[in-house]
């Protein structure tokens, strides 16, 4: 399972980096979204992958899932959600003011 999740995170991060380096704002926004998905999964996995274990104290249970990464990833999701919304609106504003969606505002044929 670890290998599968690692490949998943790697693919997401790779796609994110590739798209973030594009010259139009829309792929850049998508790339940033992919990067934030990758990092959210990464944070969650840092509590180690466990199945069917309680995150809070239960009578008679010795093994627990780590609850802290879940709290961290929740914060990270909220922040990345807000940031994505902001950057979308900013890209639209840039598109309206510049008349094109190039990140440097250049006119291309």
């Amino acid at each position, binding site marked *: 399972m670890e290998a599968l999740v690692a490949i998943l995170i790697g693919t997401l991060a790779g796609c994110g980096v590739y798209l973030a380096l594009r010259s139009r*704002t829309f792929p850049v926004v998508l790339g940033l979204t992919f990067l934030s998905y990758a990092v959210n999964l*990464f944070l969650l996995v840092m509590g180690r992958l466990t199945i069917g274990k309680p995150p809070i104290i239960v009578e008679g249970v010795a093994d627990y899932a780590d609850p802290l990464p879940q709290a*961290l990833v929740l914060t990270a999701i909220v922040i990345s959600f807000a*940031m994505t919304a902001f950057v979308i609106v900013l890209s639209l504003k840039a598109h309206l*003011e510049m008349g094109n969606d190039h*990140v440097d*505002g250049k006119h291309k044929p």
Partner: protein
Amino acid sequence: MINHIVILPVIWPLLLGALLLLLQKQSLKVLRIASISSVSVLVLLAGWLLSIVNDGEILVYALGNWPPPFGIVLVADRLAAWMLIITALVSLCALLYAVRGTDTMGPHFHVLYQLQLFGLNGAFLTGDLFNLFVFFEILLLASYGLLLHGGGRLRTMAGLHFVIINLVGSTLFLFAVGTLYGLLGTLNMADLAIKVADVASEDIALIRTAGLLLFAVFALKAALLPLYLWLPAAYAHTSAPIAALFAIMTKVGAYSILRIYTLIFGEQAGPIANLIQPWLLPLALATLIAGVLGVLASARLRQQVAYLVVASVGTLLIAFGINTSAGIAAGLYYLPHSTFAAAAFFLLADGIANRRGETSDRFEPGLIMMHQRIVGTLFFIVAVLVAGLPPLSGFVGKFLILQAALSHAALPWIMAIVLITSLFTIIALARSGSLLFYRAQAPQAIHTAMDTHVQPGITPDINGLVITACLLALCVALMIWAGAIIEFVQATANQLLQPDDYIQSVLGIEK
């Protein structure tokens, strides 16, 4: 008994920001008075906190009374209080400048301003790595709003670059934090400092990776080479009071570098000790060179000031890169000087641009300005400060840095680069000054200059110059009370290099 003063500088701007949001319908005057009095209270709070921690005490505030390392802690030591007072003073001056008209150019200026201070103060006080990330995001989100405040094509584009690069930086920050948590099982900085010292040998490479990834993030915030390219456009195109406030933003990166790499990855980190030392000094020297080359090549005054900020970051991190008690102390003396001087220069550049009408702040001969003598005198003082000429605080700061470098192996490099770049800074500023003031044409058309000045709504009155002069007076104060301040920063540097006190205060244990 928890000492509640530690949380006041964080919670106060947050509450005021929320209150100002409710007061949006009130007249502008009410908003301005509320905003200015809030920042004045912050100055007093920071001064109070500074007087408490001055004797070496480290105040710890456990949020929700969760015992560390399980809950989030706020920690006020000398460094945090020093950063708070600098932030409060700069933000007060910038706000006084902004209420002359900048704040009417878009909605929610004052709310964003308070939230910006909330993020800044939180970042300086927090003792938890993930909480540092959260406060970084708060201050960045507020800074996006402030940077774009007023609108305009160039501002939007510079803002877009600033936002995108900082979003990538946040992602890297989370990867680093996640790696550290996965390996060490804690995010409390004091607890990390203990755990990092006896890490298993197979994890060393991963911890080093996470540590250097964090360094990349902080270098991005601090605008260290090669990650400084976002800064000149963003700072040159935003409104003047915001650029002046942002003079403290690069210092957040410098602060984080100093905090994390003395506390967690410092002398006592066992196999990972002094993690960034091979990187910091060379990069800082290169940043200084790149910044000064930008200063020489600038076509506009605002752009030149933005590159001066890059150069000052280089100088500051050279001091931290020397990594002795004297070096860090020199950096901590140079930090407020460079912040105040850069803020004053941004405000002055705005005053000059408004007075020159159509030529704005481009380096071409223009009309003689209103208040030419006062503006010229202020320009001269700022130039002396920034270039580091005696007798003002810039000289004291650079002298302390060079003195600290005397015992360092890279002394020839530091000496040569700092002195030669200072010379180039003097040349560049002398050229701009003579072009702006001596080659100005006769005032036959001063009324047209008044009609067409670039930012409508802001008249080039004398008040703006008085506020600029206030910032310069702070630099003069740094020079007059240099003895007491150097004693304080020396004590701060010693406190930073002995993190045991910090760790004991937070965790309440003997190491």
